[in-house]
Structures are given as structure tokens and as C-alpha cells.
């Protein structure tokens, strides 16, 4: 397992080893959805997921 830190509450978020840039993970403590931005090393980088754009959809 790799890890990340929630930018909102600082909690440790466990991330699968095969994580991909763009993957969405959620913070176990505050429930916030996070987007993975870099996967190099044991600690991956995440940012708060943009909630939604006007042109988002199916």
C-alpha cells in the first residue's frame, strides 16, 4: 500500500500500489473525495476533487 495525506484534515489515506494519476480516492476521516495527481514514491500527491463543472456529465 502507498499513502497520501488529506489536504483538508491531514488524515492518512491508504492507496493501492497500482494507483494511477487521475484516480479518485476518498479520505477515511472526513470523507472528502481526492484526486491523485502524482504517483511517484510511497507518498502519492492528491488534491481536493473539483466538485463538478457545468459541462460535466454522462
Amino acid at each position, binding site marked *: 500500500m502507498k499513502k497520501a495525506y488529506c489536504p483538508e484534515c491531514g488524515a492518512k489515506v491508504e492507496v493501492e500500489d497500482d494507483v*494511477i*494519476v*487521475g484516480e479518485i480516492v476518498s479520505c477515511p476521516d472526513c470523507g472528502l473525495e481526492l484526486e*491523485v495527481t502524482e504517483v511517484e514514491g510511497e507518498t502519492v500527491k492528491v488534491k481536493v476533487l473539483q466538485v*463538478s*463543472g457545468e459541462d*460535466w*456529465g454522462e
Partner: protein
Amino acid sequence: MGRIMPPTISVVYDQIRWEEKAILEAAKSRGVPVNLVDAKKAYFSLTGEEPSPIDFGDVVLQRCVSYFRNLHITAILELKGYSVVNPYRVTSICGNKLLTSLFLSKAGIPTPETYVAFTPEGALKALDEVGYPALIKPVIGSWGRLIVPLKDRETAEAVFEERLYMFPLYQVYYIQKIVKRPPRDLRIFVIGEEAITGIYRYSFRDLKTNIARGGKAEACRLTDEIREISLKAAEAVGGGILGVDLMETNGGYVVHEINHTIEFHATVKTTKVNIPKYIVGYLLRKAKK
């Protein structure tokens, strides 16, 4: 003679959701190599050779959640000769409710009565035709965003007044009759020539308060009638990997929208139908090889 290599797939994405992971898994289990392309990091030449070419393989699966990103990248790749799923024409129709209504109606597929106007003045006239209450929907957008019920003329005037200050997209007044229906929709998954599965989506959305999406999914048995209308609707917009949304009315089913970049996590969970496997199978049939 070398061994015949399997076709390769590329997936253009802006987010990796459960769906994208499942598609990758399905490809892997068939031994099909996948190149993931992060649309947010890519750039393209519109006028010449690509300065930094990306490997798009033999067929491209377009999965961008952002519609404009999705549509434009599809246009670029198609014009550069790639086989893209779904094609530009299909995505342009399905991503736009006005075009969807036109193509459904032209193909004789039952769809809610709909008008369009381009000013509040025109929209008020359209509303006199439809009668109140009616719905106004943005022509581009999903998940029920900015769909507003107009219960009477005063409400309509107030809503239109507000829209005047919004992006030009909202100066397209797409006005639809509210159909009487149970509080659920059908979502039927059509891949190529086949309707593979479907769910009922129970929305607890109150059209008056317009409370967000979500709600419960339940497996839907595909009757001949459901199959037929869904396949015809998919064909009417050009076909591909599509999610056809139906409502049940007294007069039978009506199609109100067709989704071009389907979400299917809840459906796979409830129906156990392996949608990702069908997607990969379809992509291999569309590969230019």
C-alpha cells in the same frame, strides 16, 4: 511471418473512476494492451504533425467527464484518422438535448413534447403551447443540474430573468412538457447492436425542489418492447456504447435522453452483468486493424 498482435486500445480520461479501472481490468484479462491518456496533460496540433505524439493504439475509448473536452478531443482524433468510441457525431447529438430531441423525433421514437426558443419572449410563447407546469433544461449538462420546473408564468419570468445573466448556453430555452410517470427512470445499456442490461433508477428528486441526483438502482428485466425502443433510440443517434434513459408513461415508454459516456458502477453491482467486458469486446470490433 510474425505472430499476429492483438489490437491495442487507448483510453482518454480526465478522472479514473470505478468504471475506468474496471475497463482496464477487463482489457487486461483479455490480454489487450491499454494506453491511458490523461486528457488534462495532453496537447494537440490542429494544423500539422504532433510535436509530441501520443500512442492512441488501434481504437480510442473516450471517457472524459468534461463534455467539451470529450467532444473536442474526439473531433481531433477522428479527423486524424483514429477509430473513436463513441464517434464525434454520436457524442455531439447525445451531449445536446436539443439535438437528441430532433434525432429521436425524426426517427419516430416517442420522446416528451419539447419546444425551444432563444429569448425569454419566445420561451413564454412556447410555454403557452406546452402549458404549465413545464420543465426548462440546459441543452448541455447532466445529473439534473439546472433543470427547473416552471409552475406558472410568474415563475417562468423570474427564472428567465435570472438566466439572462448566465452564459449564452442558458439563452437556449429548452422547454419540455412534464410527463406523468412513476418516480423512476429506466437506464438501458446498449452496446453496438445489443441491449445488454438495464436498471430502474429511483430518483428521490423532487422536481419542485430539484434535489440532487442519486437514489436507488434495481435490476430491470428487458422485455421485447424495452429492447426494441432502446435499440432504435441508440440507432437514431448513430449507435455505439450508450445509456438510453426511458420514462414509463400511460402511453408507453418515452426516451428523454441518451448518455454517451456511461457510468455503470451501480448497474454492475445490481445486475452482475459484466459491462466492462462488453465494452472491451466492442472496442476490439471497432479497432482499425
